[in-house]
């Protein structure tokens, strides 16, 4: 199969959906000629024109609000939010408005929009351009949340997001834009709420999201070399969450580590660990371990930044601890 970058995969998804459905449009800062600072959208304005690839002023709450209104009246806006950190600016329009309008109207109004944004540190971009804020939106009922971990997933999930009749927030990993993966030429969609088992294993389950899927995969390789068989699962969407797949794996391996790049406390790992602990409790040989980004603002200095994010080595080390029963003393 051909291999394309995540960036290209996103671009294709948008182009295909815009060709298919003329109500789809893109709105955000420097999305047209510039094709965004990440150059993800290059070429789209040439095909679809400035009426459907709309450059806005630097007014995130404003254009997010416009997208809500356009979505309520029949369009399918794809909002380009340049950095995930800017979510803080659009929270009211996203969480008080978009997320709630279908419910508050008793099902009469729909808000079919997508917010495309990103997450991930270690780009030396410091505390306001490096956050992974997916937990915040996952906490708000009415929003779906997708976390692709490869070019393949980025395309399939984005196409699904655009066709969804609900507001969806999709986070791409900034560091992955140039990573290639096999992506079919033919059209495909990835349904929401279906986790992918990326590697089968029997001793321990590594649940990774987004950027942390690769980390889990690498950890699994390290562990394999030591004779430990790790299963790697990628939930792909955290709302809806494929609880059944996660529980199935947990019951099989009896040991689980959840790895996510959001801050560890009050984030994704607590939720997933909480559900597994509750619903697979008697199958577990050890507590579910959680590994998120450190609970500190992301530091600029490379000497500090790199240690704030889980690494394959750290995941493998924790896996060994779980296997050896070391956690028993701790707990």
């Amino acid at each position, binding site marked *: 199969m051909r291999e394309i970058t995540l960036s290209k995969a996103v671009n294709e998804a948008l182009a295909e959906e815009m060709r298919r459905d003329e109500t789809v*449009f893109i709105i955000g800062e420097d999305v047209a000629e510039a094709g965004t600072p990440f150059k993800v959208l290059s070429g789209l304005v040439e095909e679809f024109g400035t*009426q*459907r690839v709309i450059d*806005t*002023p630097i*007014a995130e*709450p*404003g*254009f*997010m*609000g*416009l*997208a*809500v*209104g*356009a*979505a*309520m*009246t*029949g*369009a399918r*806006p794809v909002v380009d939010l340049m950095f995930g950190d800017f979510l803080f600016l659009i929270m*009211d*329009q996203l969480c*008080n*408005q978009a997320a709630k*309008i*279908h*419910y*508050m*109207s*008793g*099902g*009469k*109004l*729909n808000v079919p929009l997508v917010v495309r944004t990103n997450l991930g540190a270690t780009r030396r971009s410091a505390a306001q351009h490096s956050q992974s804020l997916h937990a915040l939106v996952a906490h708000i*009922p*009415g929003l*779906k949340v997708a976390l692709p971990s490869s070019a393949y997933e980025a395309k399939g999930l984005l196409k699904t997001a655009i066709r*969804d*009749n*609900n507001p969806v927030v999709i986070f791409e990993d900034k560091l992955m834009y140039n990573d290639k993966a096999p992506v079919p030429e033919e059209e495909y969609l990835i349904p929401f709420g279906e986790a992918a088992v990326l590697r089968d294993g029997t001793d321990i389950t590594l649940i990774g999201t987004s950027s942390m899927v690769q980390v889990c995969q690498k950890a699994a390789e390290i562990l394999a070399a030591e004779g430990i068989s790790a299963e790697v699962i990628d939930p792909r969407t955290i709302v*809806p969450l494929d609880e059944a797949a996660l529980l199935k794996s947990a019951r099989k391996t009896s040991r689980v580590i959840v790895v996510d790049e959001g801050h560890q406390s009050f984030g994704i790992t607590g939720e997933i660990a909480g559900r597994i602990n509750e619903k697979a409790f008697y199958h577990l040989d050890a507590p579910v371990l959680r590994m998120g980004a450190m609970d500190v603002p992301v530091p600029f200095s490379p000497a500090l930044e790199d240690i704030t994010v889980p690494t394959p080595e750290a995941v493998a080390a924790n896996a060994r601890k779980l296997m050896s029963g070391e956690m028993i003393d701790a707990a």
Partner: protein
Amino acid sequence: MADSKTNTEAYLRMYRQMVRIRTFEDNANQLYLSAKMPGLTHMYSGEEAVAVGICEALTDNDRITSTHRGHGHCVAKGAEFQQMFCELLGKEEGYCRGKGGSMHIADQSHGNLGANAIVGGSMGIATGAALRAKMQGADDVTVCFFGDGATAQGLLYEVMNMAALWKLPVIYACENNGYSEYTKTDEIAAGKITARAEAFGIEAFEVDGQDVLAVNDLATKLVARARKGEGPFFVELKTYRYHGHHVGDINREYYRSKEEEQDWKANRDPIIRFRSWLVEQGVASEDEIEAMNAEVKADAAAAVDYAIAAKYPEAHEVDMHVFTDIEHVLA
């Protein structure tokens, strides 16, 4: 332009709509006072000429966004008493199946995209609806209602900038009732409100919001111009709310005097003024008007009775309408 027959119909419709709003509010207030209504609500009484003068200039394809003080806009845009009272009482037959209540009534069938409990929260939505109309090549216009207090929200300036840049068919209707909750407008608004729109190159107007004909005249002209792509526009309507900020705001002499209230009610009431004019002009006799008033009163009473007797939504509705495609999200 319109012949006298048409005008007569329009005059009587406007009068009737103003009376319907006042009557609706009197009943809502009564429901609150008799502890039959859950929560609080904000009365539109005194401001009727604003909603009616503007909405009379709109068709069902045109849209509005409304505010926490939204019953007037809702009635003026064509809503029925019965579904409105049901909504206020949290009943299943309400416009939003009881899920929205007073602050979130939406009536999509008549183009009312909904009230909003976030002050200024619908400015983006209205502008986005206008963007959608423009993208579709439709000549629909959207009116965004908000209060003087809401002009303090930065979102207004973000969306006016985009509306001006892109010549969107949106009319910003600022209902200046002199108060922002418990504070006089001049204590919280520097400079001149219309100048703020003009600074973005938006034509702005001031009009007596107690004079339904003046409001309707201006609205008719601006709507026609907006349909031709000459928008956006900004209108400041000077008006007054008779009740407290909400139904529970009874002792309010610390922020405004009884004399001031009395003066507006006695000398600038939009219904009394228009009624005298109708009689003077021979459009309707006192008797005809009294009959109309009585009919509206009876309608309202029947709707209130109906709503009180109507049933609440079933408990199983609680997790419906979170998403369009998941019937019961917690099932």
